[in-house]
């Protein structure tokens, strides 16, 4: 399959390892990955902060860049959620744009959706000799409803010990500009998430969103913790 990568502005800029890992795992499985360099941001930041017309312009750009792609994959549940759940609303009132969104949105997938649901895979040939706990991000849980897909993929990784995260479905407190506008509340939510991560005794906390990992990793790093964060893609790309 020819898969177009939407890297997301965040992974491109501060967490490229999540994106390079996405490329590696897909190529290892025999797929052709393409990268369209005109892509920038999906517009989520603007949309969720209330800058709707700016978000709509970025949605147009996304649709223009990816419109003819067979399938688009992104290492982020919340960016995919923005395209699939919110672009239709941003396109409202412009029938041509609405049609383009309706045609493209179902072909935009988060990595675990592509691997487990679309390609029907569990074992992607990865090996990772670590104790891992998984944080199912809010948008993968409640917007995309990816359900068990990431867990199935992780369980099939050789050498990986998957440990349950207590209160896993609780938010990490990131929420985009929420983390800055309501920094103290965000930090209070985060403190509980980090406590639960530490309780598992895991060496690595994984998730499908670089943004949530930025939040969780930021607190772990500040606390001098030895627990590190890794994007799901990094684990699935790892080999012995």
């Amino acid at each position, binding site marked *: 399959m020819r898969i177009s990568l939407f*890297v997301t*502005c965040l*992974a*491109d*800029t*501060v*967490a*490229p390892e999540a*994106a*390079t890992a996405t*490329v590696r795992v897909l190529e290892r499985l025999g797929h052709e990955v393409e*990268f369209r*360099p005109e*892509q*920038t*941001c999906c*517009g989520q*930041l*603007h949309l*969720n*902060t*209330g*800058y*709707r017309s*700016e978000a709509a*312009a*970025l949605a147009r*750009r996304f649709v223009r860049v990816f419109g003819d792609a067979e399938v688009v994959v992104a290492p982020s549940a919340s960016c995919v959620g923005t395209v699939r759940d*919110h672009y239709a609303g941003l396109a409202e009132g412009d029938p041509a744009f609405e049609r383009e969104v309706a045609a493209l949105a179902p072909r935009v997938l988060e990595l675990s959706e592509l691997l487990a649901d679309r390609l029907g895979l569990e074992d992607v040939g990865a090996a990772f000799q670590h104790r891992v706990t998984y944080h199912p991000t*809010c*948008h993968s849980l*409640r*917007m995309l409803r990816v359900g068990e897909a990431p867990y199935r993929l992780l369980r099939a990784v050789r050498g990986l010990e998957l440990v349950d995260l207590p209160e896993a*479905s*609780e*938010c990490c*407190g*990131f*929420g985009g*500009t*929420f*983390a*800055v*506008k*309501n*920094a*103290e*509340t*965000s*930090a*209070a*939510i*985060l403190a509980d998430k980090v406590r639960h991560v530490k309780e598992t005794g895991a060496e690595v906390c994984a998730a499908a969103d670089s943004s949530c990992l*930025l*939040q969780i*990793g*930021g*607190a772990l*790093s*500040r606390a001098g913790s030895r627990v590190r964060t890794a994007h799901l893609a990094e684990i699935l790309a790892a080999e012995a």
Partner: protein
Amino acid sequence: MKQGFPAAAHDALGNEQLRRNLWVATHTIRAKRASVVEERADWEELREAGRALKRRVLRHLDDYLLQFEEAVTRAGGTVHWARDGAEACRVVAELVRATGEREVVKVKSLTTDEIRLNDALATDGIDVVETDLAELICQLAGEGSSHILVPAIHKNRVEIRDLFRERLGVPDLSEEPRELAEAARLHLRERFLRARVAISGANFAVAETGTVCVVESEGNGRFCTTLPDTLITVVGIEKLVPAPEDLEVFLQLLPRSSTGERMNPYTSLWTGVTPGDGPQTFHVVLLDAGRTDVLADEVGRQTLACIRCSACLNVCPVYERTGGHAYDSVYPGPIGAILTPQLQGVDRAGTLPYASSLCGACYEVCPVKIDIPEVLVHLRGRVVAEGPSSRGERAAMRLLAWVFASERRYRLAQRLGRLGGRPFVRGGRIRRLPGLGAWTDTRDLPPVARQTFRQWWSSR
């Protein structure tokens, strides 16, 4: 300087006792709700039915309201229309004054709290006694409610014991729940027996029959709706349901979502007046107070479907940490974050739509499927469009949009970000970044990567 929600949240977050009380209470109700919802195989169908019924009511609200007025009148009641809170308070005050009474009992009613009816009546020399146990606690403490369903959720037993010792004149009271309830019961029973006027809210009002429904747990509401001679019910116009059989849906959705019970202990239904039985004078005050404006907003109007169950509060990661007072409204939590700005205006409550991480837990539990995150984002758009967002933020967001509009500018910004951040990087991390202190006060920040993804890609 911080204002609005972030400032109020700051105070709440520093209160350890409050945080503990909230954690215990929200987690207990959350677990109870989950178990009674899980046992219903048709829960999703029930939610869908609830949503559809409320949609129908809102779409034809003008017709249903007139139908309701006619039915109440036919049954011997009187309907009053109030454009806003002040008008509703005036109507109620006149009705109470006409009876010559100086004390009224009230069953927990958010709507009357919304319009500050107690304060209005107090200026007329009329005392209102709150009869819901938790509301009574709040009233005695001189505090507002902090939860829709459990108004005193912010207080624990010891705090309540101390309050009762002081305010109810029972110096030997222990913190045993039974003793606390008994002290309140003795205090309230006297008031019930002497009260000749009662004020209630309504959970539902049936358009077809003019029936009013109040759902509660203590039975104190039933005292209010049956003992006095005069009953005045204040109802928001969105509380209508078309027909009595529609209560079947809501009386299943509400208790399971709110208290985590299969059925609530007391459900009172009354229609007009019945000679020789219960209040002989019955008034309904139908309150708009901004609701028709909410109705005019295509995205926002779903907010009016709310049945005040408070399930969204109990699962909200923000509410769980800040409690209800931080929302500075009788409607706290996620539902308050969307209802209050719509009722009061986004200029007055502009920080509330941002008091959410958009995690979506509220939408998942809402018994009438209000897409709260959707409305939050919509209202953020109104905050930006209608003014109160800061100039600095506006400039930053416009600049960023301009950067994202061009691949060349975007690459340049990445390069500038890497260079600009370099002096702040220590051990591969940024521990302090001027302008982003809100983040770096508690969290490290990764610097712009030495090699961005697109650089890696073009170098392969």
